[in-house]
């Protein structure tokens, strides 16, 4: 651990992480960019669980700050913010999933903290997380018939 506030020169932790990820997952992961203490990546739906397992066990990403959904109208996105005390950086992974089959592997078995985030994404977007221990609505009443954060959800006077 150094105390330069993470603003390191070349050979930084971020680049080391990116190299390790590229080496292990030669296809399926696209690195979108590197900023100080930030890494942006896109990943395929098929490898997300393996990728997260690798990030957790090998690269010491020990905390999931955020799992959420985005409705891009032609597709859904799931966005993960993984952070690490050890590397002192945040890795943002964006995964595209098709609109008619919004299903993705749950990372709750890896990080318990993802549990409620994924339940919220299911509650608001209807994205199903496979192997989630308890995929139920978390905010809305259980009998709600809609997913309110989807762009095609139309409000009407109640």
């Amino acid at each position: 651990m150094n105390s330069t506030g993470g603003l390191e020169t070349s050979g930084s932790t971020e680049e080391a992480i990116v190299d390790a990820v590229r080496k292990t997952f030669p296809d399926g992961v696209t690195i979108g960019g590197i900023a100080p203490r930030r890494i942006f990546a896109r990943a395929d739906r098929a490898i997300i669980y393996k990728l997260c397992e690798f990030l957790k066990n090998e690269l010491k990403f020990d905390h999931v700050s955020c799992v959420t959904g985005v409705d891009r109208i032609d597709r859904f996105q799931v966005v993960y913010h993984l952070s690490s005390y050890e590397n002192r950086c945040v890795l943002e992974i964006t995964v595209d999933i098709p609109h008619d089959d919004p299903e993705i592997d749950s990372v709750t078995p890896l990080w318990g903290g993802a549990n409620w985030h994924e339940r919220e994404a299911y509650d608001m977007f209807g994205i199903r997380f496979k192997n989630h221990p308890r995929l139920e609505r978390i905010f809305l009443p259980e009998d709600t018939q809609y997913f309110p954060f989807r762009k095609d959800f139309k409000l009407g006077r109640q």
Partner: protein
Amino acid sequence: MDLSLAPNAIAMSVREFVKWSSELFDDLMRATGVKRAVDKITTPIWSWSLRNSIFPLHFGIACCALEMAASSAPRWDAERFGIVYRSSPRQCDVLLVNGWVTTKLRPDLRRLYEQMPEPKWVIAMGECAISGGPWYDSHTVVQGVDTFIPVDIYVPGCPPRPEALLDGFLKLQDKIRASTKGRFLED
């Protein structure tokens, strides 16, 4: 006034006699104007006691709950009007709804309302409780408490200042004064 002993002229059980005699007494009191006189004397007393011991339910939902707290704090001191917050619906006569009510909260709030003993009143405090407020046309916020609970007093504001809430309580006192009925022989 029916003083006939039919159909019990031959024999009357104790229960029947009690019923007959209490009805007789009741009719006499009404017919001679005694009930009206007693009501005229006692109704202001009941009304005074109801007015000056408003017990709202200690139930804060959102930001308005802080105004509710401020109005009972020393600076505004709602207690000088006899407004004491009770923490059980069984001991309250005013349901003060302050904040947005979501569809998830609605059945519980309705249950709280039904658990309160009569006579009871409802104050809708702030825009959310009145009409949904900033959450107009929201997918989960109920568009006004009066969609499922009868509301007596509306206190507009976002949030209403404590003096506005106290004014709402004073309006409620006026309403109680105007609507208290004589209860002699009524139950």
